[in-house]
Each structure stands twice: as structure tokens, then as C-alpha cells.
């Protein structure tokens, strides 16, 4: 059945599916994990760094990209498709500044990206973009925002979300651990993002890339030393938890 309805994507299948869009979502599930968390005064994006070949320059492979001074995004899926979307979004951010004389709100640029993706699900001869994006930033009035888009062109606001491989595991971890105290300050929010990624990333801090935006400050990508420090703090906290449990059991 599927074979007859997945060629030209402008065709619905009899049970209401757009197969090309669903296949695009499968492509997203193969991409490396990305997690986004909205704190009180900070928004955090974390991605799983794919291991880089020995001769490859590490800095050319960046999965967290700046769209404007106050907005950035991480994606999961086909890197080449992401490049096109990011380019269009960057131009739109500047066009908005030119015409409206105000920076974009995070919701506006998310809506733009989502409309762009939807356009490609309803055109002849084109396939959908194979990426999901997590878009974070601060609005003009200082509110932090996190949005997620997917290949079908829908978008939603989230407090914390994950996309890509093992997104489900990470999301379940976040559902359990996203509390008022876990985002009480900037440091805690960053640690929550790292903890979430550590659930699914092998070999610890080396394979994590973290970026933060604080209110009225540009994007900052953490150096590996800073990530190591945070990972060490997390390990220490885990040990202290384990110790406490042991003592409780023995008493």
C-alpha cells in the first residue's frame, strides 16, 4: 500500500498519511541527539558530538547555529538540509530588522521556519526538509523561549525537549527531572542539560557540546574544560546521593 502513495508527496494515502513527511521524520530519528532547556534567565542547547575522523578539523562540524544575536538553533537530521533552512532564517531575521526596525521574536522566526518547511510538503517535485529544529532565545521583553519544529511544518513551545536519536529516553528523563529547583539558577540548568545528554551519549563529557544564551548576551559555546568541570560536579553529586542512600539503608 505504502509503495503507491509515497512517490509524489502531494498525494495523501487512503488512511490520511503523507508518507514522505513520515519518512523525513524517520531521517530525523537517525540524527544525533539535541536537547534544549528553558531556564529562568538562561536557555541551554546541548548536542551529542559525533566522533570526528582523525584528519578532520573539528570546528567545521557545528550543530548549534546562531540565527541572530538573541536567537539560536540546534537541529537533528540531514545537515545539508539544515544549512539551507538556517541560511533562509538568517536572511529573514535581518529582513525583519530592516522592515520592522525591531529584532525578531523567537516565535516569529519559528513560524517562518515552520511555514518554509510546510511549503515543501505541499509542492510538486520537492521533498520535505529532513530536519527537526530546536530554536531558543530571548524576546525583546526578556522572556526566554524554546520552540521545536519538525519536518511536517508544525511547531510548539516547550519548557524542555529533545530531538534525534534516543529523543524519547531523554524526554522521559527531562519529564522526571525538570523541576523548579533543577532550573533554579544558570549552573543548575546547564547541569540538567548535561545530565540529560549523559543518559544517551557514550563516554561522557567529551562527546557533548553545550551552548547557552543569557538575557541580553550573545550565544556562548562552552569550552571542553568548562563541560568537564560541570560533568565532574555531576559525578560528585551522584556519589553524594549514593552515599546518603547507603547511610539511610544502614541506619
Amino acid at each position: 500500500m505504502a509503495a503507491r502513495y509515497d512517490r509524489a508527496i502531494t498525494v495523501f494515502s487512503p488512511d490520511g498519511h503523507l508518507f514522505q513527511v513520515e519518512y523525513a521524520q524517520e531521517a530525523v530519528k537517525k540524527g544525533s541527539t539535541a536537547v534544549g532547556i528553558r531556564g529562568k534567565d538562561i536557555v541551554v542547547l546541548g548536542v551529542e558530538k559525533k566522533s570526528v575522523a582523525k584528519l578532520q578539523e573539528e570546528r567545521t562540524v557545528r550543530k548549534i547555529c546562531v540565527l541572530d544575536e538573541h536567537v539560536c538553533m540546534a537541529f537533528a537530521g540531514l545537515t545539508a538540509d539544515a544549512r539551507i533552512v538556517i541560511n533562509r532564517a538568517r536572511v529573514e531575521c535581518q529582513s525583519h530588522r530592516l522592515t520592522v526596525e525591531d529584532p525578531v521574536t523567537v516565535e516569529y522566526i519559528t513560524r517562518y521556519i515552520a511555514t518554509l518547511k510546510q511549503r515543501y510538503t505541499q509542492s510538486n517535485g520537492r521533498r520535505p526538509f529532513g530536519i527537526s529544529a530546536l530554536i531558543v532565545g530571548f524576546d525583546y521583553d526578556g522572556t526566554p523561549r524554546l520552540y521545536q519544529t519538525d519536518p511536517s511544518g508544525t511547531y510548539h513551545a516547550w519548557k524542555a525537549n529533545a530531538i534525534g536519536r534516543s529523543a524519547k529516553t531523554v524526554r522521559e528523563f527531562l519529564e522526571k527531572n525538570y523541576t523548579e529547583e533543577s532550573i533554579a539558577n544558570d549552573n543548575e540548568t546547564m547541569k540538567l542539560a548535561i545530565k540529560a545528554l549523559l543518559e544517551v551519549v557514550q563516554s561522557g563529557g567529551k562527546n557533548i557540546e553545550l551552548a547557552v544564551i543569557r538575557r541580553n548576551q550573545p550565544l556562548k559555546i562552552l569550552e571542553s574544560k568548562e563541560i568537564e568541570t560541570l560533568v565532574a560536579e555531576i559525578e560528585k553529586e551522584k556519589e553524594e546521593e549514593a552515599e546518603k542512600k547507603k547511610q539511610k539503608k544502614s541506619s
Partner: protein
Amino acid sequence: MALLDVSGFKSHSGLGVFGTDASERWNRIDHFTFGSKCQEFALPVGSDPVGFLKSCSGENGVSIDLNHGTTTLAFKFRHGVIVAVDSRASAGRYIASKDVNKVIEINPYLLGTMSGSAADCQYWERLLAKECRLYKLRNKERISVSAASKLLCNMMLGYRGMGLSVGSMICGWDKKGPGLYYVDDNGTRLSGRMFSTGCGNGYAYGVVDSGYREDMTVEEAYELGLRGITHATHRDAYSGGVVNMYHMQEEGWIKVCQEDVSDLIHRYKKGMF
């Protein structure tokens, strides 16, 4: 949009058979669709509206004298913005109407004045009002004064050199405070504390410049606005009728009054008549 053109993007070309430019325009994802690439009216290549108008007005054949001439003024002061306009529409030497409304109420926080060609002003400012409403629906917040004036300015630039005649002041109150912009058919867009447009503007500037103080009370500001228009209508043949005055406050605009200039001029120049 200008930036898209400069950066060389071809939006939606390559599928020529399936979408003409006109129908694509409404589906565009960039909402600010005014620019030289997609204009409200398609014009044939080589048409010359200005030359055509020149040949029509004057002694050869039918004379088409556009409605022109007016006095409008607006100034910012401590308690907001005062907008005052006259209400005469003239077509050459004929007074076409004595009670034209030269202020378009775009929304409770935005006003636009009209001077120059009445038809042009009415059409383009109503189009601006439509875009402002669409902006509010799409973005769930009111458009800022600078964005609204930018939209009008881009519309004017799309038809630059083709004989439009629009001199407008966009006035409003948004989250940056009171805003006053002057936009005209050349594509000029200026932010300022005081503007006056129309052929009576010289007289209005004289009166308001000499009477203006930043710390005026509201009553004094109303008087100043009335005086400016009244004296301009007294000396300029193409301005007259009534003074329509609005006051833009933080909670929106209010229409202050509508006073006949002949009553006002008698009040101000008691000894002269």
C-alpha cells in the same frame, strides 16, 4: 524584499508552470510583501504615468487636475502628540469638498494624515491599515509606529517616479513611547518632534515654531494646533473648511474637536475684521 534581492535568493522560481507571480504573492512566507518585486498594480513596460498626466493637465484637451493642496501638522510634547488637519479638497481652482477627513484612524493607537493627491493618500493609507490589521492577527501584538511607517515608505518606493503624490504623517503610541514619522512619495521617511505638510505648511510652521514649548499643558497644545491650521487656512487658498484635531495619548487617540476655521480666525484676529 530588498534584502532577499540583494542576497540573490530566487524564491519559488523554477516552477513557472504552476504558479504565476500574482497568485504566489499572497502565499509568501515573508509577510512584508511591499517592494519593487511585487507591486499592487502591474504596469506595462514603458508606460509613463507622469508624462501622461502632464499631457492631460493644461490647455491641451481635457484637463485632469488632481485633488491637491492642504495643511496638516503634528507635534510631540510632554503629554503625547497633537495632530491637526484642515478639510478642504481642491481640484485646480475648484473647491471639490469642504469637509474631507484627512486623518485615517488605522487603529486605536495609530493615526495617518493625508496631504497631496487625495486619491493616492486614501488608497495607500487604507492599504496600510489593512497591513497593520494583518500584522496584528499574525503576530498577536500591535504593529509599532516605525514598522507601519516603514511599510508605507516601501509602498511609495515601489512606485517611485510614477507620479504618486503623498505626504503623510504616521503618528502613534507603541511600546517605545509616542512616535511621529513623516513619509512622502519620494520614499522619504523621517522621525521627528514636529512636522507640517501640504502647501500651507509654511504658515503652520511659523505659528507652531513660535508658540511651541515642550512643557505646554494639554490645553495650550490644543490652542497651538488650532492656531497653526487656522492661520494657514487664512493665507493659503488651497486649505480651509474645518480643523480636525486629535490627541495621541498613551491609552490611544482621542478626537479633540472639529472647529470651523472662519469662527476661529475671527476669534484670533479680533481687531482685524
